[in-house]
């Protein structure tokens, strides 16, 4: 009985996940990026608790406080850290709420696009032949058009609105997932474990999603990180152009657009600070994404 060792008291054994974590932590820059992103995400989630003012509650706004520079104090006493916009909204509060919409749209569309793209990519790799050719031809066709153009076409037909933007982003992004997943799945499906699963006469849906998909995850995670950053940037661009989210739900891009007309008179802060927030968000995600790519890339594995 002396040889019985409880699982919890085992010495730290090298699992793939632990190796992944320790390799990820090797880059200090990526850790900083991750920390900043987590902070931004928390700030967006708890926006209503952190923000000194609810920018949607008209009772809290004072039009007399419109376009105040950063650091001015309001008529009721507190300081507008980053100034106010043309409606007398506190920029800091507006940005926290805007971040919520930007992140929500970016992450939400990435999840749906990943689901659609992964499913089609797996199906293409599994069945091959005509199905594969049809799906990949569609992917090639779509990727031959720049993302902003595809999004523009969809929004020109559907009109603005949060759901329409999410839909446009899904249509823009799915092809990247499909292409990546198909390429990985083509390699994986020749492995012995897939052959074993086929010999067990498992239904193809089970093989695809329980056996093939988990082994295609590493490149999928890398693509997903990059696509979240791209989606946030594209949403901001579309909203800036006036095609994205409606004025009642301003994202960071729309906040920047609101400040555009006041910039020529030197009131820079309405556009400047939301842009900084957008930049920090995108760069932090990209830093994490770069390190993930280096760690998960089989060609660079040590």
């Amino acid at each position: 009985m002396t040889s019985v060792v409880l699982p919890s008291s085992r010495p730290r054994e090298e699992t793939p996940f632990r190796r992944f974590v320790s390799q990820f932590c090797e880059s200090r820059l990526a850790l900083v990026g991750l920390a900043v992103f987590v902070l931004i995400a928390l700030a967006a989630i708890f926006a209503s608790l952190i923000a000194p003012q609810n920018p949607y509650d008209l009772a809290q706004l004072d039009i007399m406080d419109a376009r105040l520079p950063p650091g001015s104090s309001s008529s009721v006493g507190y300081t507008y850290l980053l100034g106010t916009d043309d409606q007398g909204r506190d920029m800091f509060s507006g940005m926290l709420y805007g971040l919520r919409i930007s992140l929500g749209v970016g992450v939400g569309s990435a999840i749906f696009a990943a689901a659609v793209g992964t499913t089609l990519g797996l199906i293409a790799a599994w069945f091959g032949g005509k199905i594969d050719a049809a799906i990949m031809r569609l992917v090639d066709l779509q990727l031959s058009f720049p993302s902003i153009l595809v999004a523009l076409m969809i929004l020109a037909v559907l009109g603005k609105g949060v759901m329409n933007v999410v839909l446009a982003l899904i249509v823009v992004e799915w092809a990247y997932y499909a292409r990546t997943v198909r390429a990985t799945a083509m390699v994986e499906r020749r492995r012995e474990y897939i052959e074993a699963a086929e010999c067990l006469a498992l239904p193809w849906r089970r093989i695809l999603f329980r056996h093939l998909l988990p082994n295609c995850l590493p490149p999928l995670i890398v693509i997903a990180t990059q696509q979240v950053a791209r989606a946030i940037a594209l949403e901001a661009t579309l909203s800036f152009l006036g095609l994205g989210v409606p004025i009642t739900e301003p994202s960071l891009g729309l906040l920047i657009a609101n400040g555009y007309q006041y910039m020529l008179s030197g009131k820079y802060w309405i556009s400047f600070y939301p842009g900084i927030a957008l930049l920090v968000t995108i760069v932090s995600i990209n830093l994490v994404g770069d390190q993930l790519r280096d760690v998960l890339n089989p060609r660079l594995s040590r």
Partner: protein
Amino acid sequence: MLAWLIRRLIQAIFVIVAMTVIVFIGVHVIGNPVDVLISPEADQAERARIIATLGLDQPLWRQYLLFVIDALHGNLGRSFVFNEPALTLIAQRMPATMELAVTAVLLSIIIGVPLGLFAGLKPNNLISRTIMAGSILGFSLPTFWVGLMLIMVFAVQLGWLPSTGRGATAPLFGVQWSFLTWDGLRHMLMPALNLALFNISLVLRLTRAGVREILPMDFIKFARAKGLSPARVIFVHVLKNILIPVVTVVGLELGSTVAFAVVTESVFAWPGMGKLIIDSINVLDRPVIVAYLMMIVLLFVTINLIVDILYTILDPRVRLEHKA
């Protein structure tokens, strides 16, 4: 080669047909064509007359056929706002966009190649590291925000450059161009630089990677051993081998530069196609939207076709693949 070309042409035509179906469905089935094609100011009798002339009382397949026949005749409707044929409007704005896009592409080579060359030759230099870090920013920065900041610094704070518009133009081949006047060039500098930002980063990284790859090669060692001056080795032997991939990629990027001009034109109020489409979407000037979408699809299918053909001519490896 001929069989491949014909297959590729059929494919291109198929894409255009598919796009007409999608645009048709978008306008006639998802949206209400009466709202889409008739100005909201029209009264009841006027509406009935237009519905009859436009054939909106016809079955759907006939409507689609009419739409295609009209499109083939270059008749894509009249703008509600300008009361001019939509296609004419777009054709008028096209030179401004092309001028901006081509300048941006040239700028990306003029700025990107020397910086990339420097970063590749002296990879551990502090300036090189700064250049590389800057190129990451070039990929991450939202273009429209950089444009705003450029206006803020150079137009509002320093007052060196005009903030928006196209400035004075001069005619050439019956078209008005900004690059022929000093005032036009001053107006063009900031938008072109803004549009070029992404491509500068791209060219810079490509050039640097190319230099790192070519420097250890035998023919460079041989050129040095032969006693050629370092300048000649770099500017003739290294540069010649880098420029092929760089020019290919930049040529490929011309299409997306035209597409992304939508953003830059909106920021700098540059009167090109991109600004026209955004304005049209915002005031629901649907004939212009439809015409723009058809034009841009045609443009992209043509660009993709030309690039594919050039590839097969320039790169023997692609040709072999097709024969296999």
